[in-house]
């Protein structure tokens, strides 16, 4: 009986690996293509002859790609910081106080999460254009705030709920203000969640496509997803280079995801459904 279930478990594990490899094959293929010489890619041969990092050297030698990399880091970084700075007090307010309109405000913030970017694309683009802010990273950064902020508020609220309020009350009796108690007691306790939420906001901004596509046309403010499109140069086009660009965009997402998997999975199941 035991032997049999062990064998069954082994067979199922092997099947799991095979199915997983099949499901992830398109992603694996991108990574493989990024380190294959163009000659190998063109002949469609499945057997690799050698590994090359030429494609990566190629894209990192391109000025437009480097500008886009800088822009994406800038936008993503600011979005992450602002998301955290706005979400912490909001989550604290929703968690620790009772006041008129609190439930409605909580609902309003959550509802923004449910709203797909496509639904508000037209009005947002027209408003930003009429403000003369098309083709600015400021406008893009502001719209990207909406990507991760609602889920950040709700995740942090969950974590703050879990911090016993007696800890803060003790601090308040010792003479600190409520905000002081928040900074000194609660914030250090929820720090891992804060880092996860900031990371999440960064990743969402990093890969965001449609708002960038609609708001940005000039090369100097393009973000990486837009720059990847320009790698489809009709004259000197290489699949290897495009795939290497894809890997550069995918890498932070994958690394940060694997680092913060547990928090993110919690966030996803809590209603964070913006893909």
């Amino acid at each position: 009986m035991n032997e049999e279930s062990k064998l069954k478990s082994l067979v199922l594990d092997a099947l799991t690996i095979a199915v997983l490899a099949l499901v992830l094959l398109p992603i694996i293929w991108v990574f493989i293509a990024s380190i294959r010489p163009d000659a190998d890619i063109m002949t469609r041969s499945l057997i690799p002859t050698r590994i090359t990092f030429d494609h990566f050297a190629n894209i990192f030698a391109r000025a437009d790609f480097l500008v886009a990399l800088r822009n994406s880091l800038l936008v993503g970084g600011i979005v992450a910081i602002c998301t955290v700075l706005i979400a912490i007090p909001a989550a604290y307010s929703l968690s620790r106080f009772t006041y008129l309109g609190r439930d409605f405000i909580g609902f309003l913030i959550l509802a923004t999460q449910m709203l797909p970017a496509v639904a508000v694309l037209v009005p947002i683009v027209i408003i930003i254009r009429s403000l003369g802010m098309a083709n600015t990273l400021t406008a893009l950064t502001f719209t990207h705030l909406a990507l991760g902020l609602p889920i950040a508020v709700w995740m942090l609220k969950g974590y703050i709920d879990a911090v016993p309020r007696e800890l803060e009350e003790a601090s308040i009796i010792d003479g600190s203000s409520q905000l002081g108690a928040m900074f000194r007691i609660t914030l250090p306790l929820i720090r891992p969640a804060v880092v996860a939420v900031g990371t999440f906001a960064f990743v969402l901004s990093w890969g965001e496509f449609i708002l960038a596509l609609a708001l940005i046309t000039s090369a100097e403010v393009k973000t990486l997803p837009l720059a990847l499109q320009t790698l489809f140069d009709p004259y000197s086009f290489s699949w290897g280079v495009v795939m290497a660009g894809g890997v550069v965009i995918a890498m932070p997402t994958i690394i940060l995801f694997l680092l913060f998997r547990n928090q993110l999975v919690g966030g996803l199941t809590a209603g964070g459904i913006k893909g």
Partner: protein
Amino acid sequence: MAGPFESAPMTAPASDTEPRPFGDIALPYALVAPAVVVALAIAVVPLLYALWLSFQDWYLLRNPQPVWGGLINYQALFADAALWRAFWRTWIWTIGTVAVEIAIALPLALLLNRDTAIARMASALILLPWVMPFIVLGYGWRFLLDSEVGALHSVFQFFGVAGNSSILNDPNMALAIIIFISGWKGMPFMVLALLAALKSIPGELYEAAAIDGASPWQRFVTITLPSIQNTMLIIGLVLGILAFYSFDLPWIMTRGGPQDATTVLGISMYKAVFTDLRPAYAAAISVVMLAILAVASFFSLKLGRRK
């Protein structure tokens, strides 16, 4: 996460004897204000503006400023044959995407619902299609399907599915394959939800069924399926709403082509603004899409309550 507002109010000492100073009342509002401002600026104001805009007559080639047009956009919208085709195509797209998601996710979730190191690792890695940006996955699939270098294209060619040109150039096949890719991208979320539902089924149920001599298939139909069908329904609706608003994937893969074959409503709307320069018309499309989303959300909430 626990229910949203379960925490009791923080009791300030002596608050019942003296009135609370204004600062105490304003503090929670001040703390939540920036988040509310962002929500207003990025969701509420644009939605109201879109509603107003949808009643304007604003065709950039004719009049540079919007003028009141009443129902002109909605009339045009109902008479727009291409838009109607996009509308029905979007339903095919949405239902197809969710069907693919369930078809891949259900067997995967059953396979991953075991407590071994491999299964745990696989449940983490399976999320990759969900977390990776559309642009990377879209180009990855275009590479696979490319007629000159695509590995998958070779396979399709071998089985006679594709000719010399990529199936992305064939209107029917392009829609089918991009629906499949859309479902593949969204499937991990369903796996995640189904795994959570599967783990909550008490093991005694299966033991009792095994003692009664139920076959694995009978156990699946009488125990597993009823326990996860609510999750499947609700997550299916959520993913369906997302699919209904698709833009990135069909745009990156084919820009809505060939011959509008993959033009879903999101792409129609985008083209109405940026190609046809009819922002008010595009606003009307997004208002109609939103009305559909509201109806769908209403039903999904209703189903959720019934659970």
